Structures are given as C-alpha cells and as structure tokens.
C-alpha cells in the first residue's frame, strides 16, 4: 500500500510510474524505487524460496545487508531487490534456492 498522505512527511505527488513484471504479472512501480518496494506495494511478499527447505521468504533488512530479498532480475540471479531500482519492462522472478 502506497502512503500517499503522511502527517510528518506530507503528500506524495507527481509520481512517475513504470511497469515491471513479477513472473508474468505486470506491476506498477514508482520510477527509481527499489524492486522490493514495488512488490510490497503490490501485496507481493514472497521473493524467493530457501535453499534447503524451499520455504517462501521475503525481505528482512531492506538496506542491502541480509540478502533475504534476492531474486532473479532480468535473468540475473542473487540480485538484492531492496537496493536495485526498478526499470520499465524489468522482469523479476522468484528465486528458488541458490543459483
């Protein structure tokens, strides 16, 4: 959910959007924002499956430290989606285990 109005930070206006794809699902993203933010905004929380037990996992730290949010981005695995900006047409796929 996008926070359009905020008591301290004010209103969010003039957003430019781009489209990225989670699998085949088109997702509207704000230009320049990290992939992880766009996915969370769209209600998507499963970013990858763990290596041993193949359990779903999403973001943890959101600042590029923990690597919990790694996905396959435009074919490149192990991409930290919390510190990688969206680009129009970008394709993001769930990563299953280590790649």
């Amino acid at each position, binding site marked *: 959910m996008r926070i359009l109005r905020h008591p301290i930070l004010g209103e969010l206006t003039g957003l430019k959007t781009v489209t990225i794809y989670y699998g085949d699902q088109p997702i509207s993203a704000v230009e320049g924002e990290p992939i992880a933010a766009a996915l969370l905004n769209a209600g998507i929380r499963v970013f990858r499956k763990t290596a041993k037990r193949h359990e*779903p996992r999403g973001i943890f730290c959101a600042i590029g430290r923990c690597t919990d949010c790694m996905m396959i981005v435009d074919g490149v695995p192990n991409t930290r989606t919390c510190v990688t900006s969206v680009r129009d047409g970008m394709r993001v796929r769930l990563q299953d285990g280590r790649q």
Partner: protein
Amino acid sequence: MRNVAAEVAVIGAGPAGLCAAYQARSAGADVLLIDENKLPGGQLFKQIHKFFGSGEHQAGVRGFDIAKALLTRVAESGVRVKLDSLVYGIQPDKSMGLLDAEENCLLRAEKVVIAAGAKENYTPFAGSTLPGVIGAGAAQTMIHINRVLPGKRVVMVGAGNVGLIVSYQLLQAGAEVAAVVEAAPRIGGYGVHAAKIRRAGVPIYVGHTISRAYGGTDGGGDCGAGAGGVEHVEIVRLDENWRPVAGSEFTLDADTVCLAVGLSPMTELIWMAGCRFEYIPAFGGHVPLHDHNMETTVGGLYVAGDVTGVEEASTAMEEGGLAGVAAAEALGYLSASAAARKKAEIAARLNSLREGPFGDARRAAKEKQLAAMARFCSCEAERGAV
C-alpha cells in the same frame, strides 16, 4: 586498476561519516566520502521523530531535517562525495579496494575513517522465516524512504527505543500495531516513546515474547509462489527465568512481525584491517578498540558511530566529528591547541548524551573500550622498550 587517492577517506555517509568528513574538510584536509548507497545520510533520513539531547545536539529537530542540514554543510565545505561505491576490502597498510561504478579501483588515503554503521539483529522462533517477518528498520525504510506500508497489522518484537519509535511511525503511516512484546520484564526504551503508543491504544506486553508466526497463502501474487506470509502470531508469557509459561499463549491477527531486537556493528572492514577488538555486549558485540581520538590499534585508521558500539545518531555525529578533528590534526591541519579545544567541546557533548539511567550502561561500555585500548597501548610501549 585505477588509483584513487585522498588525504582522508571516510567510509560511510551516515551521521558519523558526514560529521567526520565535514570536520576534516573544514580544517583544510582533502576528503573523499564514500557510500555504497545511492543516497547519503545513512539511516538519518528514516528518523522522522524529533531528536532528544540539548540544543547543541539539535534536540527537537527531526532526524531527516538534521540530515538535510548535514548534507548541505558537507557539500558546501568541498568534501568529495562518491555514492553507489563500495569499499570492499582494506589491507593493514590501509590501501583499499573500491568498486566505483563497477570499476575496480585502488584507494589510498593517509587517514581512513570507517563509519559503516550497524545492521539489524534477527531472532529465531517457529515461523520466523515466513515472509512478513522483517526488521523494524526495514519498516522504517519502506515507510519513510519508499512510502510503502510493509503491512497492515503489525506485531512489534522488542520495546527498546527502536521498537517503540517504529511502532509509533507505523501508526503514523496508517498501519495498526496489534501489540509490542518485550521479553525483558521492563520496557527498555524511553518511557515517553512508550507513552506515545499507549495513548494511541497499542498494548505493550513486557515479560512476553513471540513463540510462533503462522503463515497463510497470501502474498504470493500469481507467480505460483505458493504459501505466503504471516497471518497470525502467537505470544507467550515468560517466567522470571525467561522460560515460556505453558498455557499462557494467546494469538493475535497480524500480517507482519517487526523485529526490533538490537543491532550489531558492521565491523568487517575493521577486522580486515587488523584492528584489535573487545567483546562488549552493551555495544552489540565485538567492537574495535579506539582511543580518545577514535583512532584504532592500526595507526591512521579511525572509527566512529555505530561501528564503535551501537548507540544513537546523536552520539554517532559527535564521534564522527571527533574522528574528523583528530585526522585533520594528525595531518597538520589543526594545531594541537586548536584541536584540543574542539575535541574538548565534543567530548563534553558526548558525555552529556551518556548521562542518566539510560546512558550509564553505554558510558561504562565506552570506558571499558577506552581502557582496553590504553592497556593495548601500554603493552605495545613495553614491547617497544624491550
């Protein structure tokens, strides 16, 4: 390999690094400030609450406004700033590996200040790997930087200042906070932060912890991701020996669990450089020894902020200033008397931030750290004398 050089290299453009860079530069040194992020400011832009401290610490000013002012000062002072650039390694001679826009460079500086900050801790419980279990800092980043609400109904684990402040910030952003749970028998953060969220109707359970998060099927989109994230959270009371009390469990609806269970200094580069460390739990683990100039056991290598022991942005800014002044002095840009005056002013402000019941543990930890450094130096001196 391209060579990059500076008199002072500051690694990390958070509150400590910005202040170190500013002080060294305003004394006349050539300063290169490097950060791996696309934007400077570290976590300061995420701190939207008004700071504590005194007027000199900019008390009453919101963190992001302090960050804006710091950035302006740094830019005007002529510090060279390199963003989206990663210092990935350092040798004991302080030569560093730098990835600058994907290009591998050799970075050399006469003085190096490492202000790499800290990372959030994790705590395991059944279901703790489910999507929706996130760091409290991650929630702050999502809300204040990306303007995305990470969840609609949140259980906060930890009632230190981070847990309390982020709970309040979740409410401000429009989320519900189902509860704050704290394993310790008392609230660890400032009472005023706790009082704010209590007034907003959030219960705080001390002597309780999260025992389980139950997952559901949402959150997978139509990517075939299958089972999704957190839907319910089980809370349990702890006895005086921190053991769960059978039968005391209760369940709350929540789609998100925020962990605010402490931070750990990001000391990788400092270890790599060969600095000596001391284990100080009150500071979040192993922290580098340093003297009153913030200089480590490796000559010319300074540290500041959360890498020296997890405290607050206010202390980080002061320590950064101290390191910057000391580095400038060591390079000859400040006379001993001018540097001593500046350092004394900063030390007085640092001391005032480490006073009172909330400062005692940190003051004691800092004294322990400085004492360990003094022991190390006297051993070295003896060895030198033999």
